Structure formats: C-alpha cells, structure tokens
C-alpha cells in the first residue's frame, strides 16, 4: 500500500531523510520510530504530498507521490492526523468535521452519517455542538482523528497521536487505534513511544535520517539483542560458570543465585547447558527466556 525506494529529502545542505526504502502492506499498522529530528514528520509530509521529495520514488496504492496528476487522488485516499491537532477552536466539533467533509465531495446526508458515526465512536456525540476550545487535550486529539477519518480513508497517517497526552487519554487513543486496526485500514504511525509501538504495530522501522532497521518488534529484539536465558540456581560458583564457558556459551550476568546466558536457539541449546551445570554440581531451580525490550533495541540502534 505504501512503498518508497531511496526516498530522500534535503532542505538546502541538510538531509532530513536519506534513501528511505520501506514497504507497508495493506491493512498493516506500521510504526515509524526515531528520535526528534530523525525525519519522521518530513517522511509523512512527503507521503501526504505536502512537501516535495528531492529524489527517490514513493507510491501510495497505485498512485505516485510527486506526480502532479496523482496528488489529488492520493489526498483523497489518505487521512492525516498532524502533530499539532490544528482544530478551529471557535467552531463546534460538528462544524469542524462538517467543514472537512465538504472537501471530499461527501453530500450533506453522507456527512451527517459519518459525523454521527465518528463522534459516537469516539464518545464525543453529546458534545458535538460545543466549541473545540472547550475540549480537553484528549478530546481534541480524538476530534482530530475523527477529522482524519471523515472520508473513510484507506490509509491513515498518525503523527505522534499520543504525544503530550496524560496516560489515561493516551490509552484511550491507543485503544482507538487498535479498533481502527480491526477495520483493516493501513495505518502509518509516527511515534517515539516504544511501548506504544510494541503494543500496536505489526511492524516497525527505526529511522535516524536513514533507515536503521525494520521488522516486527519481536524480530528486531531477536535480531539485534540475540536471545538470553536466565538460569535460577541454588547457588552459583566459578566451577559452574567455567563449565558453561567451556561448552562455548557467553555468561553475560552473574548473581549469587542466577546466571544470564547468551544463546542462539534455546530450544536446542538449553539441554546441553543444563547438563553442563548439573555436571559441575549446580542445582537448577528453573529456566526462563528473557527478551530485551524494544526500548533496549531502539537505544542500541539510535546511539549507534
């Protein structure tokens, strides 16, 4: 649904996005992670035909980004939640949505239906006639999402949808994104919240001007941190540690009653390790696999 190849954006001498190649499948929630200034918003703006690309190609569905004949078509099939909600504060929730519905050629009846459906779904129907200025941050964010969905777009771009929200409001928005995911919409989620990406996204890409890594959160964790097991023992001594090292495994953490061991394939390697420990006089109580979080992976990648 979204394909880019060597997509690049330069502002004068500054390269904001450098040779980005990604592929987002239809119906997928794709997380775009990166620190501030990594080029996430610039990428979204290029894909939404808001700013031009310097080089490379990008396609949304069958349409080519940058081709002037396709720009209107792309804008019709996408919805964008911008980093700043940008609502008309003086207008009511209903009028904000009605205004945007007009640009997508929705007739009055269809606009009414969509507005009612969206405001009810987001729990704002009772407040439809109140000015957006009176809304809380979370309510404004919901209204801005409703605005992005007014024309029922196939592709939804969400730029930092939970930034600056309190934890409860952020959870409401995350739940909403999960609901939208069920509707099989393609969602491109810009975020720097790794927990959010891990909970919501099918796949993630990590960007720092250039694409650093891409894959499912689980794949990235495995690929970049390897796998580890934690062996809980009655007591740890040097003989046990040496026995493990002797059979070719790295012990990365030692405590008086546990060891963390780097492994590649725990299903196959665990019996060998346990045998070596038993042979060295150790008494194993239990073994668990410990995974590093997406945060560990992210920090490792971003810090280089």
């Amino acid at each position, binding site marked *: 649904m979204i394909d880019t190849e060597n997509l690049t954006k330069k502002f004068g001498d500054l390269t904001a996005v450098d040779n980005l190649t990604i592929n987002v499948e239809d119906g997928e929630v794709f997380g775009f992670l990166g620190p501030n200034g990594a080029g996430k918003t610039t990428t979204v703006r290029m894909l939404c035909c808001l700013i031009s690309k310097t080089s490379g190609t990008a396609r949304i569905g069958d349409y080519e980004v940058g081709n002037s004949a396709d720009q209107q078509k792309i804008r019709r099939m996408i919805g964008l939640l911008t980093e700043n*909600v*940008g*609502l008309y504060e003086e207008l009511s929730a209903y009028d904000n949505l009605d205004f945007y519905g*007009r640009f997508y050629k929705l007739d009055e009846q269809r606009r009414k239906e969509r507005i009612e459906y969206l405001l009810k779904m987001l729990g704002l129907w009772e407040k439809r006639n109140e000015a957006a200025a009176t809304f809380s941050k979370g309510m404004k964010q919901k209204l801005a999402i409703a605005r992005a969905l007014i024309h029922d777009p196939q592709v939804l771009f969400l730029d930092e949808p939970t930034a600056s929200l309190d934890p409860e409001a952020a959870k409401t928005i995350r739940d909403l994104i999960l609901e939208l995911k069920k509707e099989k919409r393609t969602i491109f989620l810009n975020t720097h919240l790794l927990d959010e990406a891990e909970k919501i996204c099918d796949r993630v890409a990590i960007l720092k001007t250039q694409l650093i890594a891409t894959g499912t959160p689980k794949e990235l964790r495995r690929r970049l941190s390897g796998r580890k097991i934690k062996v809980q023992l009655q007591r740890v001594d040097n003989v046990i540690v040496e026995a493990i090292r002797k059979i070719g495994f790295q012990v990365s953490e030692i405590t008086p009653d546990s060891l963390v061991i780097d492994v590649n394939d725990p299903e196959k390697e665990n019996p060998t390790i346990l045998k070596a420990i038993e042979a060295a006089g150790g008494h194993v109580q239990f073994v668990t696999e410990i995974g590093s979080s997406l945060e560990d992976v992210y920090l490792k990648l971003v810090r280089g």
Partner: protein
Amino acid sequence: MDFQSAWAVAAKDFKILKRKSQVIYITVVFPLVVGIAFPLILQYALYHPKNSLVGRIGVTGLMDAFSVWFLIGAAVIPAAIASYSLVGEKIQKSLEPLLATPMTDGEILLGKTISGLVVPLAAIYAGSVIYMSLMDVVTRSTLGYLYYPNWHMGAILLVAPFLCLLSVELNIIISSRVNDVRTAQQMGMLCALPFFGVYIASELGIFTFNDTNLLILAGVILVIDVVVFFVSRAAFQREEILTKWK
C-alpha cells in the same frame, strides 16, 4: 477550480468571524461613521455658512469629496479581516490539515479572498446607503432635488470592490509572511498608502475624482488585482508554509 470548496473555506471563516466581535466592530465602524457623521457635519455647515467650506466648494462638491472616503475605507478595512484569516490559521496551526485535503492552493486563496472581501464590502455598501439617504435628507431643501443616487456615487461603488480586492490580496501576501495578527494588520494598513497618495493628489488639484477618472481608476485597479492574485498564488507555497512558518 472548485468554487464549492473555496466557498466552504469562506463560509468557515464567516462562522469564526461571527465570534470575533472585535474584528466585526473594526469593519463596521468606519463605514457607519462616514455614513452618519459626514451628513451631520454638512448639516452643521449649512446652518453656519460663514464658518464652513460650503461657500468655497459648494454643497455638491463637498458631498463628492466626502463620498471618496468610502474608497479610503475600501483600501483600509479589509486589512482587519484578511490579515486575521491567514495569521489565524497560522496561530491555530490549522493549515497543515487543510493543505492535506484535496483542495488546491488556488481554491484556498479564493476562499480566503472571498471571506476577506464580502464583509468589508457589505459594510461599505451599507454605509454608503446610509450616507446617501442622510445626505438627501440634509440637502434636499438647499438643493431643491435629491442629489443621490447619482453616477458619481455609482462610480465610487464600482471602484470600491476592486480596491477592496486589491487590499485583501496584498494583506494575504503580507499575512503569509508574518506571525501575528497585529503586525499583519499594521503592515496591511501600509497597503493603502498608494491610494492615500491619489487622495492627496486630488486634494492638491493634481487629480480629480470625476466619473471618467473613477472608471479609469477601476480599470487600472482591476488589472493590478489580476496580477496580484497570480503573485499571491505563486507566493503561497505549501512547502514553505509547512517548513518555515513558525
């Protein structure tokens, strides 16, 4: 160009302006003052002929001179609304979602032009109706006939929309370059300076606001309007708006 989309932008601006009473007051006060105060001044002058201009330039000359103030209004008033309309979008950061819709730059600019034009123009026309009515009431016994409506006022009201349009377009260009409403309005007022030059020229007798000259002025301003519209369209760059506007 989809006029429905442009009208939707203008209609939205009208809804917002209805809640901005300050902007409405600025727009309405000037034409009302000209429409009411000048007939009252003339009435005073007619009752005190020794101290007045009436003796020097005559009643109708004075009425024609007063009516030119509606052109001054047409040059100045749109600054209040046009400057708010784009800077307001900047302040609320509402342009990015708007630019992400299928609307073209021309449609957005046309919508902004309509919203900046309609209210000031309506206020000027309403003020001129009040002015003509009161002037007729005040001068009928002196002149022995109704001076208004006449071709001179017709020519002034023909120039007014073109002048208003020019002011709106210049204010849109200015407000796309500044970040607060006050600066936009102050700079917008400067757009009226060339017209003040014409007005001063008329006071000095270099230029006369007669019917023929007013029609020529209308034609000249219309040509400038068209040129400035294309300049404002070229100046309205989505990329620049999104990456450089603070």
